[in-house]
């Protein structure tokens, strides 16, 4: 098993495109190492992207934020200004595993592990984040909701990696929130995850919204109907009911050891409403 | 003569008889007498049973004295986690 840690995106792409056998990109390793130990994967080549400066940086860009794919949750948490602009994204990233896992887990890894239950993905989608990919044919931008196609299935082409994410500029009176349901208070995989991002007009009415749901379908969903259900409202009772109904309507979950179809559908509606109310409250005071 | 009661399934090894009056000065003597009466129960007494003499439980104590007027219960071994 080869291990390479290139210091440039080009170097990483070259290694990945040249590889013939099974190959894995290593960011935080919190999924990859577990899968290796469990004999789920047995890569011939591991490409560690943490030596690439671009994947480790957090910077302001065109009024928005660019976050390297290999920045850890713990590092995001310590970034006060980012946290103020995108509290939902940061809190989602900080729900991935334990404090120890926080020290390793990254947004890029969380997305590319290809799990519909990934905590940070609904928050990124709600935020309208765009992933910057680099590959043999150069770079391209892809909305996060288009990166994951299904369980363990990604839109990445051979030799392509996720380099960073761009969070758009924040309009005034905007904020976001992410909630997930787990049986314990920590350590579990999300049974349902809900990310909501809202913008209010001067009168406090919701003028823009994005809603995303995780772990209720084969991929993390961007729920346009849910957004429509609250735009133009102040999230009054009626709007909340519409929001819940829209969230329920898109759920196509599975029965498994973590939750039943019925449970996931019910809780998706509840969490979407609760996340929206938190986002609303934050937007008012932002 | 001590009053002797078999608890649980032990009575099935004595043709259903669960109560005896037996004169025995010790647990060993008691086991010997019972085995004479009902050979089938012998191995089970050897495998290990608990004996409650006048309310106090004893395990693996063949030499424990039994008073003439004692009430004795024989029950399965008790252990724990």
């Amino acid at each position, binding site marked *: *098993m*080869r*291990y390479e*840690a290139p210091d440039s995106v080009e170097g990483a792409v070259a290694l990945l495109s040249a590889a013939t056998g099974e190959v894995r990109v*290593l960011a*935080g*390793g*919190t999924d990859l*190492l*577990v899968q*290796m*130990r*469990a004999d789920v994967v047995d890569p011939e080549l*591991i490409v*560690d992207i*943490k030596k690439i400066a671009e994947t480790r940086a957090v910077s302001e860009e065109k009024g928005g934020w660019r976050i390297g794919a290999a920045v*850890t949750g*713990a590092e995001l948490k310590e970034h006060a200004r980012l946290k103020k602009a995108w509290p939902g994204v940061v809190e989602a990233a900080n729900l991935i*595993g*334990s*404090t*120890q*896992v926080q*020290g*390793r887990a990254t947004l890029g890894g969380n997305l590319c592990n290809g799990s519909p239950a990934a905590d940070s993905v609904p928050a990124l989608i709600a935020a309208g984040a765009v992933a910057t990919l680099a590959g043999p044919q150069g770079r391209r931008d892809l909305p996060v909701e288009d990166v994951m196609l299904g369980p363990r299935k990604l839109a990445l082409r051979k030799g392509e990696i996720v380099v960073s994410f761009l969070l758009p500029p924040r309009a005034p009176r905007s904020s976001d929130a992410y909630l997930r349901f787990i049986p314990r*208070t*920590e*350590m579990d995989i999300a049974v349902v995850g809900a990310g909501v991002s809202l913008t209010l007009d001067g009168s406090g009415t919701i003028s823009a919204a994005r809603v995303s749901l995780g772990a209720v379908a084969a991929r993390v969903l961007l729920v346009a109907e849910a957004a429509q259900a609250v735009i133009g409202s102040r999230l009054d009772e009626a709007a909340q009911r519409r929001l819940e109904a829209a969230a329920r309507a898109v759920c196509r979950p599975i029965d498994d050891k973590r939750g039943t179809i019925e449970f996931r559908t019910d809780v998706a509606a509840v969490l979407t409403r609760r996340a929206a109310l938190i986002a609303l409250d934050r937007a008012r005071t932002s | 003569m001590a009053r002797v009661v078999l608890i649980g399934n032990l009575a099935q090894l004595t043709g259903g008889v669960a109560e005896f009056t037996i004169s025995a000065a010790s647990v060993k003597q008691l086991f010997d007498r019972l085995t004479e009466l009902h050979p089938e129960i012998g191995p089970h007494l050897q495998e290990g049973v608990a004996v409650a003499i006048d309310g106090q439980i004893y395990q693996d104590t063949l030499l424990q004295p039994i008073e003439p007027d004692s009430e004795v219960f024989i029950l399965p071994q008790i252990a724990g986690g």
Partner: protein
Amino acid sequence: MAKHHIETVVNGDAVEFLCETEETLLDVLRDTLNLTGSKEGCASGDCGACSVTLDGRLVCSCLVLGCEVAGRRIETIEGLAKGEKLHPLQQKFLEHAALQCGICTPGFLVASKALLERSPDPSEHEIRFWLAGNLCRCTGYDKIVSAVKDAAATLRKG
């Protein structure tokens, strides 16, 4: 392929070792460097018994490859006591009887130290959530939380 030759710093000492790509930092610490204070409870990052710090950042050493730590600074349970003197956390764990079997204790101590370095006066809530990645099956966490609070107070007094 040939093993990786890694130079790193463990508990302040420069060390070199050879490892296969698939060996984790925990494998290296325990089997190659004979630092068996870090324990393997799950090898999947769910129990925290293998907690160490990597350049001051708390991680599970079972989720780090040995070949990733070249040039890094690693702190393990073996580095917690300074010479004769136990770290206040170690002392308070003993005074509060915050361990029963003791298998999870090294991980809790390393994780607690990382907490107190960031948050000198943590609330019970903060302690419990910071330590949620460290499983203890014996104590019910009660005496561990008390010990960490008490150690924090001692450290604040300096």
